[in-house]
């Protein structure tokens, strides 16, 4: 079998100890996915596995044989940035940029989770079939991605602009 990386079929590593993160960066030359803590605490290494956000530092590459991985390098289509990537630029969703690929991949996965009604720690009604991506929901759902520059307001704005339904009254959008 092969691992699909941004649509390209790749051979898994021979050594099962290679993390998905090191496989992407060191074996395939895709340095967009970042190594922050390398222990599952920061979210910088977030990628999408069959559309679900995961931490590539805690994943062994061989476990993803036969599955489809999307990294920050695979989000743009035909040379055009993903809408969330554009929103991060417009809303100053980063300063140093190191956490940004993880933030963006995480938010793409998060939007799918909200769409299918996955509850979060702040979801008041577990029986609700639809979830509104409120400020509190967004911050809780993105809590696995740390930004040491403190660009969180821009990050929240970019994700809100891209994924939250327009509020009926003047909201936090800018």
């Amino acid at each position, binding site marked *: 079998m092969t691992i699909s990386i941004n649509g390209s079929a790749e051979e898994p590593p021979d050594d099962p100890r290679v993390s998905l993160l090191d496989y992407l960066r060191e074996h395939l030359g895709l340095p967009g996915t970042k190594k922050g803590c390398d222990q599952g605490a920061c*979210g910088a290494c977030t990628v999408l596995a069959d559309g679900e*956000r995961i*931490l590539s530092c*805690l994943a062994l590459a061989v476990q993803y044989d036969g599955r489809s991985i999307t990294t920050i390098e695979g989000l743009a289509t035909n040379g055009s940035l993903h809408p969330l990537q554009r929103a991060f630029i417009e809303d100053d969703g980063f300063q140093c940029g190191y956490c940004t690929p993880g933030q963006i991949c995480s938010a793409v996965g998060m939007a799918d*989770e909200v769409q299918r*009604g*996955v*509850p979060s720690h702040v*979801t008041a009604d577990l029986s609700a079939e639809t979830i509104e991506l409120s400020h509190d929901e967004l911050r809780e759902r993105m809590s*696995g991605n740390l930004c040491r520059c403190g660009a969180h307001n821009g990050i929240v704005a970019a994700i809100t602009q891209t994924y939250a339904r327009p509020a009926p009254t003047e909201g936090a959008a800018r």
Partner: protein
Amino acid sequence: MIPVTYARVTDTADAVSRGAAVGARYLGGGTNLVDLMRETIEQPTALVDVTGLPGSIDDTPDGGLLIGAAVRNTAVAEHPAVRARYPMLSRAIVAGASAQIRNMATVGGNLLQRTRCPYFYDHDGSRCNRREPGQGCDAVGGFDRSHAILGTSPSCVATHPSDMCVALAALGAIVHLASADGERTVPLTGLHRLPEDHPEIETVLRPGELITAVEVPPLAFAAHSTYRKVRDRASYAFALVSVAAALDLDGDTVRDVRIALGGVATKPWRAERAEDVLRGQPATPGSFRAAAEAELAAARPLRGNQFKVELATRTITAVLGGLRDELTGDQA
């Protein structure tokens, strides 16, 4: 460098055959084992990937649920039957880790995750009986603010880190096991051992034994249940104290109650003493507090974690009060 083999199994017989080998470890989502391998605390020579075993969430004939061990944590938390019938379980899961980790972590792996005691992790700098039997424990007398107050021993004061297990303890879950010798079940509250003199033996699992499923028995009043987690930051932190509780009232009297605690004990802690004290009592803050105090009477706090006794007492009292208010319609 220690060579490691990797095998992805698709049936339980193959899994337990491979898992019986010396040096073999079952691999779920990897969120704990991969980290521990990197820290050299775990040094397996064979990884048996059990994420491909049949994993689903099914109704049992008696009205409970059978959750396959390979089911991801997110899949349990979002399952309609779990949300409707066992809301404390959904709430416990989404209170733990981050969404990325919940998408990876399996139910079986969650049960077998190891403590996050910093002295356990500090391979080069600290003594730890759990990591190196008989070595001593640097947590006692050290920075012990996050450590356990219940179920401890002079050998070990490390907490069990799981949120999900706390809800499963309250719900009376049953763990299904398989090995080359056959199948058996143990109650979740009997899966993890108290540290006593051998903290390195963390569970009653036999060598090579595999968790295949977790059964949640029917419990009608668990539909009125919740999970509250108190931690140092609002999200993505381990519990200082957590409480899973379900309450059943007969008028103003407590007909039945389930309480389990996280963040304060060396294993997922079913608060049976508090439950016993509370059954038949009036559903008042005074009764709730008395029950909590009865449970915490056994607490053996350390220098830095004495606050957990009162924090746990207050959290139990508050959670039960909230459930009572919901049931009696005092407030939303």
